[in-house]
C-alpha cells in the first residue's frame, strides 16, 4: 500500500514527529511504500539543521535525514508555514535577503500543492498532530 504522511506539530514539544517517524519505519518494514512525508504547521521546525538536543536524547531531525537517505523518502516542508517560522533554504534566504539558511539535508521546501498531490496519489493519508 502507498501511504502519505503529514506531520503537523513541532518536534520535542509534541510527540507527533516521533510517532510519524516510528510509523514510517514500521510501514516500510512491513513492505508498504511511503513516497512522501509532508511537514506542516509547527511540523516544519523538524527540518532545521541548527537544533542541538542533549546528547542522551534522540535527534529528531537526524532521524528523518537518515530515513530519507536510506529509503529515498521525499521530505517536503511547506514553504508558507516555513517562512512564517524562520525556516529557509539557501535559495529562499537569498530571495528574501536573509543572511542564513537552515534546512537540513534530506528535506526540501515546496508548496502546499505537494500535500494535495500526495493525498491524491496515495492509498491512505495519515496525519500526525496534537
Amino acid at each position, binding site marked *: 500500500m502507498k501511504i502519505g504522511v*503529514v506531520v*503537523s506539530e513541532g518536534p520535542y514539544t509534541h510527540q507527533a514527529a516521533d510517532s510519524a517517524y516510528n510509523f514510517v519505519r514500521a510501514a516500510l518494514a512491513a513492505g508498504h511504500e511511503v513516497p512522501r512525508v509532508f511537514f*506542516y*504547521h509547527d511540523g516544519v521546525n523538524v527540518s532545521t539543521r541548527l537544533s542541538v538536543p542533549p546528547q542522551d536524547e534522540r535527534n529528531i531531525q537526524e532521524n528523518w535525514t537518515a530515513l530519507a537517505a536510506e529509503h529515498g523518502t521525499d521530505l517536503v516542508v511547506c514553504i*508558507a*508555514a516555513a517562512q*512564517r517560522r524562520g525556516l529557509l533554504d539557501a535559495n529562499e534566504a537569498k530571495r528574501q535577503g536573509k543572511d542564513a539558511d537552515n534546512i537540513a539535508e534530506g528535506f526540501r521546501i515546496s*508548496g*502546499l*500543492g505537494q*500535500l*494535495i*498531490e500526495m*493525498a*491524491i496519489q496515495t492509498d491512505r*493519508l495519515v*496525519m500526525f*498532530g496534537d
Partner: protein
Amino acid sequence: MSEDVKKFLYVNRKAPYGTIYALEALEVVLIGAAFDQDVSLAFLDDGVFQLTSGQDTAAIGVKNFSPTFRALGDYEVTRLYVERESLEERGLSAEDLQEITYEDEDDDWAEKPSIRVVSREEMAAIMAEQDVILSF
C-alpha cells in the same frame, strides 16, 4: 468526474484565533481547490466559531480572515457542513454564522447557501464516505 477525483474533507475543530490551525487549514483549502477534487469542509467543536459573523480582530493584532470563507464558492468549494450539537453546546445557532453562498452551475447559476447545519450523526456519515480527511 474522472476516476482520479477523490472526496476530500477538511475538518476544522479549532477556534479561528489563539492558534494558527484555522488560518493554515484555509490556506490548504485554497491551494487544494486548484486540483479539481471533490471538496467539502466540516466545522465542529470550537471550529464552529470560525464561521461566526461580525468578527473583529483589531484588538488582538491579527488578521481577520473570516471574509475569505465567502470567496470559497468562487473556488467551487460549495459544501460547508456545520455540526448542530457543536453550535448548541456553545450557545450558538445558524443565525450567528455569516452568510456564505455559491452559484449553482447546474441550476442556472442560482445563488444557494454553502453552509449546511447537520447533526453529529450525519457528520459521522459524511466522514465515512470520504477518501481523504485532513484534520486541523
